[in-house]
């Protein structure tokens, strides 16, 4: 029974993984990748790891794939550009190398038969949330904290990379809170009660709109 389930979910995972690589449209690849994640979550349940299975569905199939699909939709690239002849010879090389890798792993798996540990031995509280949590906050507290610092760095890095206007140069200063200027500050002939905003990203842009570029050159000389 378990073997049948393994074959079912394993075949589903491999088929969806092949679809990820074979599809030309990245959106279809993303949907196939969700299929891989779901079938792997089913395999985790079979391996008595319900917490990991839940996290797999929530984080991978939920959060990460939503992010990927969001970027695909944002960039709006429906189809891959037609391939040119350059680097075409790498395709058979890649397939051959992949076949060699699979053959090596298969040889190891066939020749090494030492893993005869019975998974059903002992009371199984290994995959439960309680045991994972108690280990995570006692013995593995340092990796946990390092991971949180990594996430913070990822947040800062993603904001820096994806912001419009690119990295700031050393001479540019962004005025905090003044990036949205009222129209009357830029155009003196505007109605005084016209509060339509003028959006600027950098100090230079604001200075240009305000006509005070000479002031910045002066301050640069100081």
């Amino acid at each position, binding site marked *: 029974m378990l073997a049948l389930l393994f074959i079912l979910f394993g075949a589903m995972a491999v088929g969806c993984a092949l679809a990820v*690589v074979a599809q030309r449209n990245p959106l279809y690849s993303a949907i196939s990748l969700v299929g891989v994640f779901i079938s792997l979550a089913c395999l985790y349940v079979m391996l008595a790891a319900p917490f*990991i299975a839940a996290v797999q569905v929530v984080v991978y199939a939920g959060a990460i794939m939503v992010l990927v699909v969001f*970027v695909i939709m*944002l960039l709006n690239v429906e189809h891959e550009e037609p391939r040119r002849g350059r*680097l075409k010879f790498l395709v058979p090389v890649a397939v051959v190398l992949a076949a060699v890798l699979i053959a090596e792993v298969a040889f190891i798996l066939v020749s090494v038969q030492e893993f005869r540990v019975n*998974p059903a031995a002992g009371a199984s509280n*290994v995959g439960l949330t309680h045991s994972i949590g108690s*280990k995570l906050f006692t013995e593995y507290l340092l990796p946990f904290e390092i991971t949180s610092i990594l996430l913070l760095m990822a947040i800062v890095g*993603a904001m820096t990379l*994806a912001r419009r206007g690119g990295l700031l140069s050393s001479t540019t200063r962004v005025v905090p809170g003044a990036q949205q200027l009222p129209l009357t500050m830029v155009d003196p002939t505007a109605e005084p009660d016209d509060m339509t905003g003028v959006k600027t990203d950098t100090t230079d842009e604001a200075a240009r709109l305000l006509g005070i570029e000479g002031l910045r050159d002066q301050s640069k000389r100081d």
Partner: protein
Amino acid sequence: MEPQLSWYLALSAVLFTIGVTGVLIRRNVIAMFMSIELMLNAVNLTFVAFASFFQDVTGQLFVFIVMTVAAAEAAVGLGIIIALFRNRESLDVDEASILKL
């Protein structure tokens, strides 16, 4: 018949190999990114299989941390992809050769 440990390892190896093939043969940077996610998941399957067969929770903790790293990688990687697309108007990795002489 119960699934053996070697079955899970074989499945994981196959998934990992498909991911490597995807990184090698695809041009679209988002597709390459998804192939990398596929490889990470293959390794996760190995961790969970060993954790289950050896009755040790450490493997599942590693999976937890790998998932966190994958989330961070997704955020930064997609930020890089957006910046690349803004500069190059293309997702083809062959276009991103500005460092090449």
